[in-house]
């Protein structure tokens, strides 16, 4: 809703933002046609997870923190497991590393397929939402549902449930799926991989506004393979540091207009970006050949700095996730122990993984009995808030002539570029525009 002010300015306020996770609002002020303020206001109440983790056992964070989000619980489980295992000085064997990666592929598939088909594609095809889009493009929506279902089935088989998996524990899993159970998923995953390739071609043909982000990109990187469940940190300016040093480089700070902390990198006032664009731009050489070829055919270079093209990168990452899942399933043999013991010890541990929307960091301090003394969680949407606001500041200036409905639609599309998860960050959206 927009209204003119007595001094001739204009204010626009968008109420609850649609098609993003959680509750937030957006406020834009124009003065004499110039954008003077853009605020992403996250008003979903903070949930104090870090506080109520204190005093709990070191075995509990995977189950407790998974509840922060219904769309990326595996990210919370994995980052917390790494951090607790780091604090306790335990390394897990190869089979558990592989099964963690396979489970994480399921989460990427669920999250990316939902976002591409039901949340973001309607923006590009000119619909208010997936329901309106489905009337004209039923085949596209049906494909998206099938692709997401393949992820649900993978999560169900490996994680025990398709939304909040219950099979993850510190040190590994309660039970490993059998080769037979995993092989049963193969036909659905193969079909979905083929459909993901068609999806890359579909979304590459969308119309993308011209916008190149100048921001720093930050992601994980591993010695082999695209970063999903683990890695160390790299940045687009050449920075590289282990996850243990995350808090030496990333500082969280509070801004008055949001319940979610913002974050800055190495003291810079400029925003930095995590998520698919950063991940792709820093790791495109690590994609599987089929995903790399899909990216090439979609016109993506080795880096991508247009946030609207994030939908193409997500489609490429879907190809990668199905391909990785099939690779792990094909190589799986039964017989490994589902977990290793993680005896507690006093210490501090650090863990990070690539949630679908970017790096998710956890830190825990344990006493000798394994009781959590301190906990810190840095979710990706918190890190991306400054860059979302910076994108909007750049774009709403050029959109100042749009009417409020069109402006709101464009702004929401720009915010959805980040697939923000506000439930995680509060730990999203009303729009106000103030034009004077």
């Amino acid at each position: 809703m927009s209204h003119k002010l007595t001094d001739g300015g204009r204010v626009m306020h968008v109420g609850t933002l649609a098609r993003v996770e959680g509750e937030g609002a957006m406020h834009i002020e124009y003065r004499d046609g110039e954008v003077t303020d853009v605020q992403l206001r996250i008003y979903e109440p903070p949930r104090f997870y870090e506080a109520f983790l204190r005093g709990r056992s070191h075995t509990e964070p995977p189950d407790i923190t998974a509840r922060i989000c219904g769309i990326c619980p595996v990210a919370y489980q994995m980052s917390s497991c790494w951090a607790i295992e780091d604090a306790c000085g335990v390394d897990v064997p190869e089979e558990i590393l592989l099964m963690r990666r396979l489970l994480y592929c399921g989460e990427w598939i669920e999250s990316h397929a939902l976002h591409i088909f039901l949340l973001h594609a309607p923006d590009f095809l000119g619909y208010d939402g997936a329901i309106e889009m489905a009337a004209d493009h039923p085949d596209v929506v049906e494909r998206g549902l099938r692709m997401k279902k393949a992820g649900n089935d993978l999560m169900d088989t490996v994680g025990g449930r398709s939304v909040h998996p219950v099979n993850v524990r510190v040190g590994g899993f309660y039970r490993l799926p059998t080769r037979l159970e995993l092989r049963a998923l193969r036909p659905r995953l193969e079909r979905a991989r083929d459909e993901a390739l068609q999806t890359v071609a579909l979304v590459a043909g969308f119309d993308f506004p011209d916008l190149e982000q100048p921001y720093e990109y930050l992601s994980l990187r591993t010695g082999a393979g695209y970063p999903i469940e683990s890695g160390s940190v790299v940045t687009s300016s050449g920075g590289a540091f282990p996850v243990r040093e995350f808090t030496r480089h990333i500082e969280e700070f509070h801004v008055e207009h949001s319940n979610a902390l913002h974050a800055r990198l190495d003291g810079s006032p400029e925003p930095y970006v995590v998520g698919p664009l950063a991940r792709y731009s820093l790791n495109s050489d690590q994609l599987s050949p089929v995903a790399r070829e899909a990216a090439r055919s979609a016109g993506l270079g080795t880096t991508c700095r247009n946030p609207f093209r994030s939908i193409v990168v997500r489609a490429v990452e879907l190809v990668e996730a199905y391909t990785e899942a099939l690779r792990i399933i094909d190589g799986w043999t039964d017989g490994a122990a589902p977990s290793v013991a993680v005896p507690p010890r006093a210490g501090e541990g650090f863990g990070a993984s690539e949630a679908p929307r970017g790096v998710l960091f956890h830190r825990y301090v344990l006493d000798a009995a394994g009781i959590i003394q301190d906990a810190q969680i840095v979710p990706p949407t918190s890190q991306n808030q400054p860059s979302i606001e910076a994108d909007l500041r750049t774009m709403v200036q050029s959109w100042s002539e749009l009417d409020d409905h069109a402006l709101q639609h464009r702004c929401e599309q720009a915010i959805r570029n980040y697939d923000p998860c506000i439930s995680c960050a509060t730990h999203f959206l009303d729009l106000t525009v103030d034009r004077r």
Partner: protein
Amino acid sequence: MSEAVGTGAGRTGSAGDGTGGTDGGVLVIGLGSPDRGDDAVGREVAHAVAALGLAGVAVSEHEDPTDLIELWSGAAAVVVVDAVRSGAQPGSVAVLETGAAGGRLPQSAWSEAGRGGTHAFGLAAAVELSRALGRLPALLWVVGVEAAGFEHGAPLSPRVAAAVPEAAGTVVGLLGLRPEAVGSRGGGTDVSR
């Protein structure tokens, strides 16, 4: 439930390849998280209905609303039981009738439910997306049980727990509206979890 907290886990009732498994049948679905207080009431009502052993009625419990489209495709009649938050007294039971033969859900249901469920995709979105895809059963009722709280790990609150038999009776009553479907397929009732 159909609002912002209904995002817990559920097991799909069918692990098939995209086709529904209840062709022409009658399906009762309990929707909600088992771990979030009164959000579990849909599942508890589903258990109560399953215990009645109604022939020809498949009962399942779910959580991810996007799964529902596949689950109910091909069914003749579906009852979804879910926790709701409307401002009524906790434990109140309300019925909303829709389905391919019914009207589109009101915008209010859409905007509320659209914000909940998994990543802004709720029960109402599943209903309307099914309708747009031509996959909505002819008859679909939503039986809503007014919830009191959604605390992590909490059991059902007393008034909501006390409403489970009434809600189950409401489900049976709705199925009774189609006696030619209930009991026509034979066999026992199975809860698919």
